[in-house]
């Protein structure tokens, strides 16, 4: 690696690179104080909620107008570069823009309120397509509810101890109600990443409503109160939530004594982790207790597959020279994964009925849905590089080839 003798040159480069990543503010200086003022005003007017979309703004960042090829407030950088090889100390604005998580202690938790009933409506519209009715799962997306919260004599939730030792047995059920230790994860994830097709499109009241609905679907009680349809969740009530599996994790990694707790836990390996000796050979009975280790029994051969697995090492049959259209190439690259079958809940290409129902909406509408995303489908099938014309061609191809079959 080369040393930074020419720090200022590199710093200039980092500023250019940095503008692409963070759109940054500076500390006030006499030369551009007025510009700074306008910049900091932009921080506070970014709209409702931290992520209200704004043209030209990068995720969570601040945009500055460009003048004479320079980002106005960004032309001078007075942040310390001491001890940093590449880059500099972030400004207060940058920290504010990036420090966006919601912590279990309530840091970052927005104000707002929403009822279970409102959440129900929203869930049905925006979430049920992937996560299933009542959060029951399906279509390959995570299950959000279900799994009994019944506990064994040690207070561990029973369904978490499921082991899939044989085909047909249940895996551990890790849903919000049985597994998640903190509710802050839920509201934070909804705000930052959901719904899949339009992340960050929900208002604070809506994220509270959805959180309320999902907690109610998992039969969580807040402060001893059962959540019925009329239950309204707000910041104050949210902080009182205690999740069923909050104490199910060990060692305790929270709080001021966390490091000591972790050290103590790992210091007594024999008691807290296992037998204490690692088995490397002939491990059927590692503890020499005369009993076969349970885990040894995992591993089975999948035999009953139709057609049976083949061990033959043939090359796939060569395809005849077939001319395929550009639309088909694009379809294969971007859409086929979900649309080849109806597994993901998407209308399968070749399914006349499904596409008839789609086409009834009108071609233009279908194209718009494909561009903007719909239900479980992300905008443009997840590939932002596709142009609207290409999408139109693909939709045309999908409808046409469904008619043919």
């Amino acid at each position, binding site marked *: 690696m080369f040393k930074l003798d020419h720090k200022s040159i590199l710093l200039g480069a980092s500023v250019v690179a940095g503008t692409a990543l963070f759109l940054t503010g500076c500390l006030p200086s006499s030369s551009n104080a007025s510009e700074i003022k306008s910049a900091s005003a932009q921080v506070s007017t970014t709209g409702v909620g931290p992520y209200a979309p704004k043209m030209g703004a990068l995720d969570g960042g601040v945009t500055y107008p460009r003048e004479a090829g320079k980002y106005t407030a960004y032309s001078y950088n007075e942040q310390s570069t001491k001890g940093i090889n590449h880059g500099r100390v972030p400004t207060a604005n940058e920290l504010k823009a990036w420090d966006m998580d919601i912590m279990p202690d309530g840091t970052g938790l927005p104000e707002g309120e929403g009822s279970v009933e409102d959440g129900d409506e929203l869930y049905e519209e925006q979430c049920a397509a992937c996560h299933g009715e009542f959060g029951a*799962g*399906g279509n*390959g997306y995570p299950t959000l509810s279900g799994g009994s919260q019944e506990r064994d004599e040690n207070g561990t939730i029973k369904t978490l101890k499921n082991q*899939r030792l044989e*085909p*047909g047995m*249940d*895996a551990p059920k890790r849903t919000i109600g049985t597994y998640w230790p903190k509710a802050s994860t839920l509201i934070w994830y909804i705000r930052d990443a959901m719904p899949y097709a339009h992340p960050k499109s929900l208002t604070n009241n809506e994220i509270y409503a959805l959180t309320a609905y999902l907690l109610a679907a998992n039969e969580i009680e807040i402060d001893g109160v059962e959540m019925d349809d009329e239950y309204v969740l707000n910041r104050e009530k949210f902080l009182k939530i205690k999740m069923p599996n909050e104490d199910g994790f060990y060692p305790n990694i929270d709080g001021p004594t966390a490091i000591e707790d972790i050290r103590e836990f790992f210091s007594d390996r024999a008691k807290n982790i296992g037998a204490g000796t690692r088995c490397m050979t002939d491990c059927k009975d590692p503890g020499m207790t005369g009993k076969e280790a349970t885990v040894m029994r995992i591993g089975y051969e*999948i035999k*009953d*597959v*139709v057609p049976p697995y083949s061990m033959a090492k043939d090359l796939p049959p060569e395809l005849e020279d077939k001319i395929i259209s550009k639309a088909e190439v694009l379809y294969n690259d971007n859409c086929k994964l979900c649309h080849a*079958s*109806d*597994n993901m809940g998407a209308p399968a290409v070749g399914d006349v009925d499904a596409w008839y129902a789609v086409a009834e909406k009108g071609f233009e509408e279908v194209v718009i849905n494909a561009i903007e995303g719909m239900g479980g489908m992300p905008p443009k099938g997840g590939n932002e590089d596709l142009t609207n014309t290409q999408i139109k061609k693909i939709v045309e191809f999908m409808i046409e080839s469904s008619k043919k079959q």
Partner: protein
Amino acid sequence: MDRRKFLGVGLAAFAALVAPVAELHAIDFRATKPKAWQAEKSAEAIKEMFGTAGLKKTDKIKFTAPKLAENGGSIPINIKSELDLETIAVFQDANPRSLTAVFTVPKNGIVNYDFRIKMRQTAFVTVVAKARDGVLYTMSQEIDVSIGGCGG
């Protein structure tokens, strides 16, 4: 207190009177056709359930199921029809016994049911529906179940 007690008794008695009337509509097919629930194969189960009358293939009852089920533990199925049906039974050959569910359609009811079944292996799912005029309709579809899929 007496009055309240009296009212309480009155309500309970009333409920007891009303309940059987409502129950009369409900048919427990487990009680009326016990043998059908024990049959291992669809053909046998259909015979026990609906007798030996001929089955008519139809496209007027729409039966939608995924062709390939990734999660054998939960396979969504939809049955939809404009016909005036009385009983709809679902059979499959993937489990130890065949008969899975029997729907009783109320008079003037809408036939549009969504539900989820379990299948341990790839097999045919057969729907047999009895119309109010006694005709038996049937249709079936093979559902591929991928074993050990991520949904388990």
